[in-house]
C-alpha cells in the first residue's frame, strides 16, 4: 500500500494563480483608473468669471513680513499660489488652498516660503454685472472689470429676482468690459445679478465647431466601417479559403497599414494624390472624403484580420455539403458561410468603427484641421489643447468615450454575445 506516492507532494497552485491574478488585475486596474480619472478630474460646476490679475510683479522682502495685497472687501477672489508661496494671511488665518474665497478684509498678506524670492501667486477678482440693457432681443451686459471672455464662448446669467440660472447663452459680441448675447423669447431676464461660465462639457457640447466635429466623426466612422466591411469580407474569405501563388506576400501587404506609423499613412496618401487627376485631388484632399479615406486605410486592415480569423474558424465542411446539395460557390457563401460569420462581421465592424473614431495623425496630414470642414473629434481635442484649454480637450475626450461606449453597447445588444462571452 505505502509506495512512492505517499511521500510525493505537489506544491500548491496558489502562487501561480496569484501571479496570474496580479498581472491581469494590474492591467484591468489601469483601464478603469484611466477612465475614472478623466471623469473625476473635470470640474462639472459652473465657475465665476474672473477679471485681470491684481498682483504686481515684485519680490518678497528679506525678513518674514510678506507682501501686502489690497483687495475690495465683500468681493470674491480667485487665489492661486505659486512656487514661492506658503499661502496668504487674512483675518488671522493662513489660507493655503487654491480656489475662490470671499474677501473679508481690505488687505491680505502673501507669505513666502523663501525670502527674497519672486512673487508668483495670483489674485483675480470676480467680475460683477453693473448694468443690463435689452434691445431687440439682444442683452448687453456691462461689467465693472474686463471679463476676458471671447466671442463664441458660453455664459449663464442669473436674474436678481430668481434662484435659477437663465439658460446658456452664446456670446455674440464683446468689448473689454461689455458683452452681448441673444436672449430667447422665454427668457425673463430683467436685471442680471451674476454671471458664470458653464462647465467645459456644456461649453464643448454647445460649441458649433464641436457639434460639427461630433457629426462628422459619427458619419465618417460609419461610412468607413461600411467600406471596410465591403472590402474585408471578400478579402478575408479569399485568404481563408483559397491558396494561390504569392499568398504569403499578399498576407504581408495586408498587414502594412497595421504596422506603419499612422502619420506615414497620411503622408503617403497626400503624396499619392499628387499623381491623380486634378478634379479627383480637388474633391478629396483637405475635404471630408480625405477624412474617410484616411480612416479607411487603417481601420480596414483590422477588419480584414478579424474577418480572416472568422472564416478560418468556420469549417469547410459546411460549404462542401452545400455544394453537394446544389449550390455554386456564391450561393454557398451567401446561404451557409456568411450567416455563420455574422458575429465576426459585427466584431470587425465595431473594431473598424472604434479605430476610425480614434484616427488622428493621417487625418491631420491628409485632410487638415479646418474647423467646420475636416474637424473630427480627435482634431477637436488637439485644437483645444493647442489653444491651451486642457479642460476643453478633456470634455471632447469624454464625448469620445461616451460615443465609443454607446457603439459597443449597441453592437453587443445586436448579438456580439457570441464573441465576448
Amino acid at each position: 500500500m505505502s509506495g512512492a506516492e505517499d511521500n510525493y507532494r505537489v506544491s500548491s497552485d496558489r502562487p501561480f494563480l496569484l501571479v496570474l491574478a496580479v498581472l491581469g488585475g494590474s492591467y484591468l486596474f489601469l483601464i478603469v483608473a484611466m477612465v475614472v480619472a478623466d471623469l473625476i478630474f473635470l470640474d462639472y460646476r459652473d465657475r465665476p468669471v474672473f477679471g485681470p490679475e491684481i498682483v504686481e510683479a515684485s519680490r518678497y522682502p528679506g525678513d518674514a513680513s510678506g507682501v501686502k495685497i489690497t483687495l475690495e472687501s465683500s468681493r470674491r477672489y480667485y487665489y492661486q499660489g505659486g512656487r514661492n508661496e506658503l499661502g496668504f494671511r487674512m483675518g488671522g488665518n493662513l489660507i493655503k488652498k487654491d480656489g475662490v474665497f470671499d474677501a473679508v478684509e481690505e488687505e491680505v498678506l502673501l507669505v513666502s516660503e523663501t525670502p527674497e524670492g519672486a512673487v508668483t501667486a495670483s489674485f483675480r477678482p470676480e467680475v460683477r454685472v453693473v448694468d443690463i440693457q435689452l434691445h431687440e432681443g439682444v442683452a448687453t451686459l456691462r461689467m465693472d472689470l474686463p471679463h476676458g471672455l471671447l466671442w463664441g464662448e458660453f455664459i449663464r446669467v442669473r436674474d436678481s429676482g430668481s434662484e435659477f440660472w437663465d439658460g446658456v447663452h452664446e456670446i455674440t459680441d464683446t468689448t473689454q468690459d461689455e458683452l452681448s448675447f441673444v436672449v430667447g423669447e422665454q427668457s425673463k431676464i430683467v436685471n442680471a445679478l451674476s454671471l458664470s461660465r458653464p462647465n467645459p462639457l456644456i461649453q464643448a457640447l454647445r460649441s458649433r465647431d464641436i457639434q460639427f466635429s461630433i457629426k462628422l466623426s459619427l458619419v465618417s466612422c460609419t461610412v468607413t466601417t461600411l467600406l471596410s466591411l465591403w472590402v474585408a469580407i471578400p478579402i478575408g474569405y479569399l485568404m481563408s479559403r483559397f491558396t494561390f501563388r504569392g499568398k504569403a506576400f499578399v498576407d504581408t501587404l495586408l498587414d502594412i497599414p497595421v504596422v506603419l506609423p499612422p502619420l506615414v499613412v497620411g503622408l503617403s496618401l497626400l503624396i499619392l494624390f499628387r499623381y491623380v487627376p486634378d478634379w479627383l485631388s480637388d474633391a478629396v484632399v483637405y475635404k471630408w472624403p480625405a477624412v474617410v479615406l484616411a480612416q479607411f486605410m487603417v481601420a480596414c486592415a483590422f477588419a480584414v484580420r478579424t474577418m480572416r480569423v472568422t472564416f478560418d474558424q468556420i469549417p469547410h465542411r459546411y460549404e462542401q455539403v452545400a455544394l453537394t446539395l446544389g449550390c455554386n460557390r456564391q450561393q454557398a457563401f451567401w446561404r451557409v458561410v456568411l450567416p455563420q460569420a455574422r458575429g465576426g462581421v459585427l466584431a470587425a465592424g465595431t473594431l473598424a468603427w472604434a479605430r476610425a473614431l480614434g484616427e488622428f495623425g493621417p487625418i491631420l496630414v491628409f485632410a487638415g484641421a479646418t474647423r467646420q470642414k475636416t474637424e473630427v473629434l480627435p482634431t477637436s481635442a488637439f485644437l483645444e489643447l493647442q489653444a491651451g484649454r486642457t479642460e476643453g480637450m478633456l470634455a471632447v475626450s469624454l464625448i469620445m468615450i461616451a460615443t465609443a461606449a454607446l457603439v459597443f453597447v449597441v453592437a453587443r445588444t445586436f448579438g456580439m454575445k457570441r464573441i465576448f462571452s
Partner: protein
Amino acid sequence: MIAVDNLSIRQGDFLLEGVSLELSDGEYGVLMGRSGCGKTTVLEAICGLRPIIGGRILLGGRDVSVLPPAERGIGYVPQDGALFPDMPVWEQLAFSMLIRKMPKSQVEARVRELAKDLGITHLLERLPVGLSGGERQRVALGRALAVKPRFLCMDEPLSALDEDILEEICELFTQTIKKENVTALHITHSKAEAARLGDTLFHLVGGQLQKVGPNEE
C-alpha cells in the same frame, strides 16, 4: 451505378493511385479501412469536393470527373453531420429544394415525408444545437436525400453514436435507403457496422482497394 476507374488523387504528400470500385444500381457498398488510409479522400473525390489527377468517375454511366459537386446528383452525409448551425431542421431538409427553386407545395410535402420516414417530425422547428447524435445523423441523411439523388455517399455517419441506439439507426438507414432506391457508398472503420449494413464490402489497405466480396452474414 457508381464506377470509379483507376483513380489517382493527391492530398499534400499523400498519393492514392489506381483506385477502382464498382457498385451496381441499388447496391449498398461499404468501404472499410483504418483511419488515415484515404477512405474519406476517395469519397470526397466521388462527390467532387477534391480534384483528381488521374482516372475517371462514372455515375450512372455518365462521366462526372470534372463536373462541379452540384451537378453530380449525389447526396453527401459527412462524418459529424455538419448541420448548418443557424437553420432550423425543416430548412436543412428543404435546403436543396429551395436552391433549385422547387414549388413550395412540393417542398413542404417532401419535407413532411422525409421527417416522417426518419422520425424527426417533432424536431422540425428546432435548431441543430442540442440535438442528439442520432437525431443529427437522421437530419443529415434527410437533407442529403431531399432532392431524390440516385447516389449517396456517407462518411462514417454512425461512428459517433452510442452503442445502444446504433441498432435502431442502422435499421432506419438501411430501410430509408432501400425505400429511396439509391446506390449508396458508406465508409466506416467498424467491422460490425460493415457486416450489418453492406451488400458489398471493399477494403482499402496500403493505398490499394480490394473487393472483399458480397457480404454474407
